[in-house]
Each structure stands twice: as structure tokens, then as C-alpha cells.
């Protein structure tokens, strides 16, 4: 159903798999990431046309020109997926501005920069789908990852606001909250209900096709987070979650 797609954060993990699964002879995918060589390797494996663009999402000033150039190249745009994200490990008792800032910049500010551009374009054209890869982590503030959870909570709230703003103009806004996924981000970690990146990407695309809404990947996280979200704060702070 989509024919002109942009994936931001496309060189590894879920983003890489999204590009590979979206790639189709009848569809052009613009893949954006910092690492051009990695992107080109992804493009080589793809079964359809993939255009690659080297870009750091924290280079905010460069985004408008790049976005406009890509839209022109694609001849329009009907799907934008933001899945750039970083999660450096933060130890117990560690307060690290460099890591915290990087998470806010990539996970939240970069998302706002790119999806504002996409939303303006789509609101004006009265159609399109925006997908944000947020996280189950955004549902609660966790002691193990204060700023990561904050960046994802912010992203989730931003996507909800975009949805409330744009749905009336025919734009679908999809929030995807994956649980743990086996990628370089989670290397060496043992986490519950972990899935592979290709499974996660398939789940994301299914939600994207379903239109406006919020969904967990895999679905098992929906009841789990339903419960976790309702654990009273005075109990939640005593757990190790």
C-alpha cells in the first residue's frame, strides 16, 4: 500500500529490517543513517530500489533540505518511519550528561525535527502515514534508565499529540512500542520476551498498515504493560524493574 517511504535510522536493527522488508520493485525506499557504508550494504541486499543518505539526526539544521530533496527524488512521500535510537548502558548511581544528552538528542529531538517536517508535508497533502518507534520503556520511568525512559515517554506523548493534530486531515500516526529486540543496542543483555529485529520489523509494518493507533510488538507486551502502568508508584520504586 505504500510506495514512497522514508526510514530514518536504517543502517541496523529494526530500521535495517524495515528497509529490507519494505523493499519491493513497486516501491522506493529512502534509507537514512549516519553510516553510509552500512546503508549501502543494506541497499545491496534489498529486493527493490533503495536510495541511501548519510545523515546524523542530531545535525538538525541539515534536516529540512535533506527531507525536501528526498521528497522531490521520491516524487512525494506516503510513509515516514523514525526508528533512530540510542541506549548507552547507564550504571546504577551513574549520572552522565554526555550519555543522557545523546539519548534525548537522537531519540527525541531528532524525532521531532524529522516528524515535524513529515507531518507538515502530510497535513498539507491530506494523506500519509507516520510511524514512530517508541518503546515499552516509555510507559514508566525506570530506575535503570532514567533518561532513556524519559526520551521514549516524550516521544510517545509527542506522537499522541501529532495523532490528535493530524488524523483529522487524513494523516495516520502510528506509535509502535517494541519490547526488547536483539540488536546491537541490547547486545549481551538477557531480557524477557526478546525477539529478533526481523520479527520486530514485521510487527511494525503490520501496525503501519493498520493505520492510526498505538501498538506493542510483540503483542504480549500489551497486557504486561497494562498491568505495569497501573502499579502504584510507592510499590514500583521498590522493585528492580
Amino acid at each position, binding site marked *: 500500500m505504500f510506495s514512497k517511504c522514508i526510514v530514518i535510522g536504517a543502517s541496523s536493527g529494526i530500521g535495517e529490517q524495515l528497509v529490507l522488508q519494505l523493499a519491493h520493485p513497486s516501491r522506493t525506499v529512502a534509507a537514512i543513517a549516519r553510516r553510509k557504508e552500512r546503508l549501502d550494504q543494506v541497499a545491496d541486499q534489498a529486493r527493490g530500489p533503495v536510495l541511501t543518505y548519510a545523515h546524523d539526526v542530531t545535525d538538525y*539544521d541539515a534536516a*529540512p*533540505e535533506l527531507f525536501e530533496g528526498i521528497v522531490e527524488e521520491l516524487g512525494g512521500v506516503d510513509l515516514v518511519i523514525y526508528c533512530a535510537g540510542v541506549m548507552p548502558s547507564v550504571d546504577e548511581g551513574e549520572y552522565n550528561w554526555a550519555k543522557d544528552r545523546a539519548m534525548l538528542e537522537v531519540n527525541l529531538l531528532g524525532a521531532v525535527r524529522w516528524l*515535524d*517536517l513529515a507531518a*507538515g*508535508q502530510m*497535513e*498539507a497533502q*491530506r494523506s500519509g502515514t507516520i510511524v514512530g518507534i517508541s518503546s515499552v520503556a516509555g510507559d514508566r520511568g525506570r530506575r535503570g534508565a532514567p533518561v532513556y525512559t524519559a526520551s521514549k515517554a516524550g516521544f510517545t506523548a509527542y506522537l499522541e499529540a501529532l495523532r490528535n493534530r493530524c488524523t*483529522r*486531515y*487524513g494523516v495516520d500516526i502510528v506509535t509502535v512500542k517494541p519490547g526488547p529486540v536483539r540488536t546491537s543496542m541490547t547486545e549481551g543483555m538477557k531480557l524477557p520476551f526478546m525477539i529478533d529485529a526481523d520479527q520486530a520489523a514485521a510487527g511494525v509494518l503490520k501496525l503501519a498498515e493498520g493505520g492510526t493507533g498505538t501498538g506493542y510488538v510483540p503483542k504480549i507486551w500489551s497486557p504486561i504493560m497494562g498491568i505495569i502502568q497501573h502499579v502504584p508508584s510507592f510499590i514500583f520504586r521498590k522493585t528492580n524493574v
Partner: protein
Amino acid sequence: MLLRHELPRRVYDGFGRAAVGLSVFVRPHGVDELQLSLERAANEGLKVAFRGNGRSYGDAALNTGQLIVDMTAMDKVLSWDGETGVIEAEPGLTINQLWQHTLADGWWPPVVPGTSWPTLGGCVAMNIHGKNHYKLGGFGDHVLELDLLTPTGQRLLLSRESNAELFRGVLGGFGMLGCVTRVKMQLKRVHGGRLLVRQWALPTLSHQFDAWEHCQGEDYFVSWTDCLGFGSSQAGRSQMHSARYAQPDQDQEGAVTLHRDAQRLPGSLMGVPAPLVPLVLKVFYSHDLMVRFMNQAKYAASFYSSTAPFFQSHAGFHFLLDQMPGFREAYGAGGFIQFQPFVPREHAQQVFAEIIRVGLRRDLPSYLGVIKRYRPDDFLLSHALDGYSLALDFKVTASNRSALWQTCQELADLVLDAGGKFYPAKDLILRPDQFRRAFGQERITAFRELRKQVDPDRVLRTDLSVRLGIDEPG
């Protein structure tokens, strides 16, 4: 960094919501800031459009992919003389702010549209009209002087004496000759804050045109026209309104009602609280049959009500649209277009009847029809003529859009065959060839000559100017 990448963006729409465009924008607070933006835009090839309060129905204040200069921050009254009724103001001042400033001294804008929210700059750019064009002409007839900033950075004083050709072109030139930065105009002396209004019903279009013969005796004259009706014989029936300024001996409360509190708009319309009006209208506008019932009720109400004159505040009489905040939402997601042909007196009745007939026959009826009377004037791209206009609201949906455009373009040919004209503030459908026929090749050539003088690099552009082919040879 280029302006086009640095500036904030915004999705703008026309008042009818059927046209939208994404633009970058600036909102200058003074002439110097405005000039700087113009210079920077011109240097990087960014095209510029000026926008006031966005009350043009179509694409006149859109500039897709380019720069919108939002003029609403330049809204100061620069001088006001309560003795002579001459005001000077910045272009972002609204009609609403204008009368609030002057009415207590006994002065009212001689020409006002059906809403008080347009800016003076917009009123100049469109040379807007009211319900008294046949008597006092358009907005431009009361403008004494303009300051104009051109894209090349010239600051010119325009009046009937100085730069007269440009003055004639800027009034109604839809912002294509530069940015108006000061408007000096003459207001009209009123003795009180109220009009003596008369309302009556007439069963056919031909009755209406007989009634219009007597409009010269009234200060304002307007007719609402039912474009549906139950059965074709009812289409064309109307609710007429005429109004006169109340003379001192007619209105004991004249002086008191000059106060702005006496101009407060009623909180309800036909018994419906104002905030709910758009919702109720949305229900009625959801189907033609519902509109038939609504029009029937409106006609019947005026048929059975007294025709004795009654007092109404200036604001209450003129600004019906302002009594329904959110009115433009009532047509649903696709919005609506206003189609307003101007037809010479001798052909008006026949052309209007045909337009209403075609709408009904093609299942594209107008939900609203308003007839007004005009006199010719001398502005370069004037929509005024010795004749009438019929303003029609058509609901736009995803499924009717192409048929509606097709039909309106055919109707436009009908209007042009009769020597008619159109009004850029209301237009979203004209083709370049139709625009040329409406205003005449000679006038368009003269307008292009003016453009060459003040905007040789063609910095100024709107979606309207592109659609109408303002700068295209031919």
C-alpha cells in the same frame, strides 16, 4: 543557512478550507524587518506572498513551498482624527479593530465585508465590497493614500495624485505589486450605532430583481436566495434585507449605541447558541434534503414575520459570519468553495437562474446564495461592474471535487459570455484563459507592465497568481 530551511513552517488554508499549502513564514513587526525578509527571500530565490487574516476563500493567501509574510503583527493605528474621520493604520489592523477605534467618535468604515476579521491590507489587496457597492463603491473608493514597499526595496507613496497608475493597480491587485505598509482612509459619519433594517420575503428571482430596482433609496441592500427549494419553482425565492442609517430624529438611543458594548453580537442565531451553530449547520449540511428543510424554515420565518423596520447594530447587521465562530468547519473535511460571478445588469437574472438550474440538475446545489448590486469603478483589475453578483457556497467532498470544478468552470464560461467578471478573493476554480476573459487582455497587459516596474524579478507569487497565470505570456 537558507531562509527556506531556517524558518518555521506552517500549513495554511483558505477560508473555505478546500485549498491548503505548506509554507515557511515570517511575522514582521515593522517595515524595516519586513524589508529585510523581502531582501533575503529575493536573494535566495524564495517567492513571497503577503497574508493577513486568511479570509480569502480560495488560494489567494497561499504560497505552497514558498514564503508567507504574515502581516498581522503590524496592526497599529498610526493616527486618528475624530473630527474629519480620517484614519491611518498599519495593514494588519482588522476591520474589527478599526471600528472599535472610531465608532465612539461617530465614524464607521464606509465599506465592510460580511466578517470583521479581514485586515486592511487584505481589504486593499482585494478591493473588497460590502452590501452597499451600488451606492458607495468598494473599499478602494475610500482609500486616500497608501504606502507601498516593493520587492526591490522602493518605498512609494500612492494616491490618486501620486503614482496614480500604481494606486489603481494595487487596489484589487491581490498583493502582486508589493506590500502595503500604511493605509490612510476616509470613514463615514454615522449619527448612531444602529441601522433601520427591513426584511421581507419574495417568492421568485424575478420578484427579487424588481425589488432591486429600488435599492438606490437604501443605504444597504442584500438578498439571501434559496438555491434549492422543494420543486424547481421554489428555487430563487429570497429573503430581502434593506437598511438605512438611522437619522438623529429616528433613533433616540443613537448616541448611546455608538458605544462598543451596544455593538456586541447576539449570543445566539435563530435560537441556537453561537458556539453550537457550526455543529448544527454541520448536521444540516450533511445532506441536500436537510438544507432544503433549513432553507424552507428560513424562508417561512421571513414570509410570516413582520416587514416593519427594526433597529439593528452596525456590527449585528454586517458581520453575520462573526456570529458563527467556526462556521467554516461546518462543511466537513473537504471544506467548501465560494463561487461568485458578477454579471452585467441586463443579463443577471437570466444567468443567475441558469446557474441555479444547472446546480440542481447536476446534483451540485449551492447551500447558500447571496445577491448584491454593484456600480462600475476605475481600478485596474476591478471586479465591479454595473450589475449584480451571486455568491454561492458549494460543499466540496472527495467524490464531488472534479465534477464540481468542471461544472463551475462551465458556469464561468456562461458568465463570461454575458460579459461577467470574477473576484479573486472568492475564487478557486478559474483557468488562465477565463481570467483573461474576465478582466480583459488590455488590463492584464497593463497590470503586467506595473509588475515589471515594481517586481522585475517576480519575487511575489501566490498559489492564485500561479493558477491564473499572472506572469505567463498569453
